[in-house]
């Protein structure tokens, strides 16, 4: 297949899978087989795209012209392919986990669940391969809409309230600041095409660019920059595999990916680096620290992880704001590494819930003894998110440190160091309590030999294997990071590898 065919396949395959899943709703096994086959197919397709990528011959596909100047078009480029690779690669694992989780929880409406999941992947692929800002915007909105049924899945009162908040934040931010910023960009530059070196240099003054960058940073609500982060903890009402989708596979990642793309192809890295991003540096760094501190105060495991995501992805925004090839490289790696680390953590939190029906830090003392592999995976994920070697998460932190020191931002270096400690401060207690904590006597569920099905410590294999695989992924990524850097280096003008 040609590159153009592969790109279309990547978007249409999950779309077709969604249709088949809806049709196969009566037979759960067939339905899940469709999901898994589509996930494998998509992973293979994206891999073909990555392996065969050649900047010289990468084609542009024009799909349709909505308005004069507003053309829907697709174009493959390295940053997008990295995002597509992460999303496609994790979809299969997340699906395996979903099967284990949803069946163990006897969840209703599973057909809708798997179908919307496939639709979300289709939208994510379209975001990854969007050739201009207009296409990206359309796909971005589509992703918001198709994930709404997933967030509201349980349809309890709380779920409906949380999902409404999710929708309200994301639609409001994209309709006001995001669309406004896009229109401003269009009127200033006369085009919305993603172009190497950016399209805005010389078209607007630095003051206006600073404002425009802030509009984008807050307009892309999916990036969850504080103080517009509230939707992310609210979306915790969703089933855990959906949380994993939001945090690791597609949604938040789509947000920061959009920012990276805007930085590289709309503004131009150098333009931001000459001072346009300075205000955003302060906001993002404050977001990193503040969200980490809030995370420490949360008792609910998933809420803790949600604030952790706010903090960790503010680092991508930070990378965008620093505006140097090194920083952008850090942002891209953070996108990948955080995906693997955080999905491991969510798999872990969900598996704890499946096995013991406990959701809070204060309840999980001592449960780790029955789940050694799971807790070891959780530890690996936590250490990777914190940025310790020999795990993938170290690379983005290291590159950010280098980027900060190249611009003499010493305060920022301190912030980054502090953030690693804070990250451990809110993630390590989960592991420590689960493994070394002594179950309290007043908690009847903590008694051993409680084998009434619920809380028996039984974990379906399908809920255990995915976190183990993603934890190993964190380890492999530590070694593989230079390869990713080499892949994106030409696109972001990174000369020598650090």
């Amino acid at each position, binding site marked *: 297949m040609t590159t153009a065919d592969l790109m279309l396949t990547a978007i249409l395959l999950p779309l077709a899978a969604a249709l088949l899943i809806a049709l196969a709703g009566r037979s759960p096994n067939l339905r899940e087989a469709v999901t898994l086959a589509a996930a494998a197919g998509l992973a293979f397709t994206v891999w073909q795209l990555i392996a065969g990528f050649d900047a010289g011959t990468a084609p542009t596909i024009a799909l349709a012209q909505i308005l004069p100047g507003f053309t829907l078009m697709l174009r493959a480029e390295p940053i997008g392919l990295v995002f597509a690779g992460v999303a496609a690669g994790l979809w299969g694992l997340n699906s395996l986990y979903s099967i284990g989780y949803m069946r163990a929880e006897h969840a209703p409406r599973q057909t809708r669940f798997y179908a919307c999941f496939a639709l979300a992947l289709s939208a994510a692929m379209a975001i990854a391969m969007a050739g201009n800002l207009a296409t990206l915007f359309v796909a971005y909105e589509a992703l918001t809409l198709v994930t709404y049924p997933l967030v509201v899945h349980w349809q309890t009162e709380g779920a409906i309230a949380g999902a409404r908040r999710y929708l309200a934040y994301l639609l409001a931010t994209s309709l006001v600041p995001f669309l406004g910023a896009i229109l401003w960009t269009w009127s200033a530059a006369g085009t919305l095409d993603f172009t190497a070196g950016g399209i805005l240099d010389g078209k607007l003054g630095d003051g206006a660019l600073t404002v425009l960058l802030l509009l984008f940073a807050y307009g892309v609500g999916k990036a969850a920059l504080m103080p517009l982060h509230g939707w992310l903890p609210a979306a915790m009402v969703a089933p855990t595999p959906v949380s994993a989708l939001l945090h690791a596979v597609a949604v938040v990642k789509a947000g920061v990916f959009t920012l990276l793309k805007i930085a590289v192809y709309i503004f131009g890295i150098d333009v931001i680096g000459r001072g346009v991003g300075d205000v955003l540096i302060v906001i993002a760094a404050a977001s990193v620290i503040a969200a980490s501190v809030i995370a420490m105060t949360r008792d609910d495991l998933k809420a803790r992880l949600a604030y952790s995501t706010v903090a960790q992805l503010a680092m991508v925004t930070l990378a965008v704001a620093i505006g140097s090839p090194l920083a952008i490289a850090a942002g891209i790696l953070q996108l990948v590494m955080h995906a693997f680390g955080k999905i491991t953590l969510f798999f872990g939190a969900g598996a704890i819930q499946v096995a013991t029906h406990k959701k809070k830090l204060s309840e999980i003392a001592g449960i780790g003894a029955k789940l*050694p*592999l799971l807790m*070891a995976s959780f530890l690996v994920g936590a*250490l990777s998110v*914190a940025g*310790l*070697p*020999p795990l993938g998460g*170290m690379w983005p*932190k*290291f590159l950010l*440190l*280098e980027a*900060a*020191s190249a611009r003499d931002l010493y305060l920022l*270096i301190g912030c980054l*160091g502090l953030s*690693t*400690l804070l990250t*451990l*401060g809110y993630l*390590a*207690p989960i592991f*420590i309590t689960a*493994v*070394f*904590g*002594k179950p309290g006597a007043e908690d009847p569920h903590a008694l051993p030999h409680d084998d009434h099905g619920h809380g028996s410590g039984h974990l379906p294999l399908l809920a255990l294997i995915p976190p183990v695989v993603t934890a190993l992924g964190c380890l492999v990524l530590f*070694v593989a*990071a*230079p390869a990713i*850097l080499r892949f994106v280096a030409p696109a972001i003008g990174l000369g020598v*590898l*650090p």
Partner: protein
Amino acid sequence: MTEALALDLALLPPGWPLVLAGLLAGLLPIPIAARNVGFLGLLASLWLMFMAGGAPVLEPLDAALAIAFHLVAGAGLMFAAAHEDRIAIAAGLVATGAACAALASRSLAGLMIWTEVIAIASALIVMAGGTQAAIRAGLAYLLLQVLAGVLLLVGIALGSDGTVTAGAFVLLALLIKAAAPPVHGWLIHAYAAASPTGSIFLSAFATKVAVIALARLFPGEPALIWLGLAMAVLAVIPTLFESDWRRLLTWAVVSQLGVMIAGIGLGTAEALDGVRLLAIGHVVYATLLFVVAGALEMRGGKAPAGLRPFALLAALTIGLPGLAGYLGKAVIGEALIDAGLGWADIVIVVVGAVVFATAGLRPLVEKFGTPGGERLSLREGAAALLLVLAGLALGSFGGALSPQAEAAFHATPLIVQGIALAAAALVMLTPVRRLLRQRPGALGALAVPMPSWVIGAVQGFGRVGAALDAIGGAAAGLIGGGGRLVGHAAVGLARYVSIGGVGDGVLWTLTVLTIVLIVSFG
């Protein structure tokens, strides 16, 4: 960093079988004795490192340290076997492997990775102690080590433009990891809070790797002489007062780390080899001390038959010429004299003698008062014996590891050390100690309100007396009934050697001792 790492990771680092064994021991979902997996890993690792015919990755002194790490892990496994403690064993194996890998790594990046692995594994070992205090100490340990790791990372990141600041960050990170004051409290709390098995694994790796890294990166940094000597002196004072045996031992560890750091600060070839020799010796005798303390603690403080000889041997291993601890200290001391710092040599000799008295002899006097503990198990005895023999071997053949070691066998250091140890033993083991003892309770009778620090200070002096007092009873064994003690030790050893009955064991042990003495002094 990508390049440095590519070089460092191109080959599997030595010690990887241990990391693998640790992971298997901790995570295999089938019931299996973690220690057996560990023993296999140790054998595989040694085989790959020294016998499989690959290119030697380690210099002789580093290789000896790696072997010492393996021996410590082996002793830890044997000891743990009696009191199975899966997480501590698994994490201990990972730490051992990572420590070996750290010795072999040639880049700062590689060093950072492996020290970080050691830190995480060690924090797990501490937390496996299971008590609230252990968990808190473990978390503090983890956060502090990660802080050091972040400083290292910042140092590497800044290092691309080769500034002095970068070096300062790295130095600071390594000093934290080597427990240099004022950042040493984490070590004390951690060692004391871990399980007895855990403390055996803990005492060997993290700090020694930091010391070796300092020796490689910052030799001859004059400030380190002062820092090291201050550390040696300040840390040895609490050993006089501390009543918790493991905390006492940990203070002694910090004090000896100070001696090593002083040697690094001097930075001559002689001093650096001395530091490496002391690191090896210290790994052996510190672990031996923790094994003895652990065995007693496991019995609720009741002394088991057969432990006392090992306690004495452990004490002797600290500083007796011909045993593990002497060599390094003597070489560092000679190096100090050669550099015109004779007073510094006196400082470390005195510190060494006090450590011998407080960490070695004082528990012997104070902690063996309640007999009746459950008999020493074969495995515990084997663990202790393994380390005693390692100490013998190092004391006897350690001289071959470095041309500088010859300095240790000149008349001066031998005589000085002999006098110092004898003086320490005299104070510790004679009635001098009892004369100086003062009851801290007597202060309460004064009924005068006093600021707490005054009381503390007075009690402190009282305890100095008590400590000196403690220098007493054991030589009632050594001087009065020295022969009996030696005999006792030999019989104790023999029970675990058990080649053809007790009689042969005694003969065998005495033969080894004689050979060692001849080799050392001949």
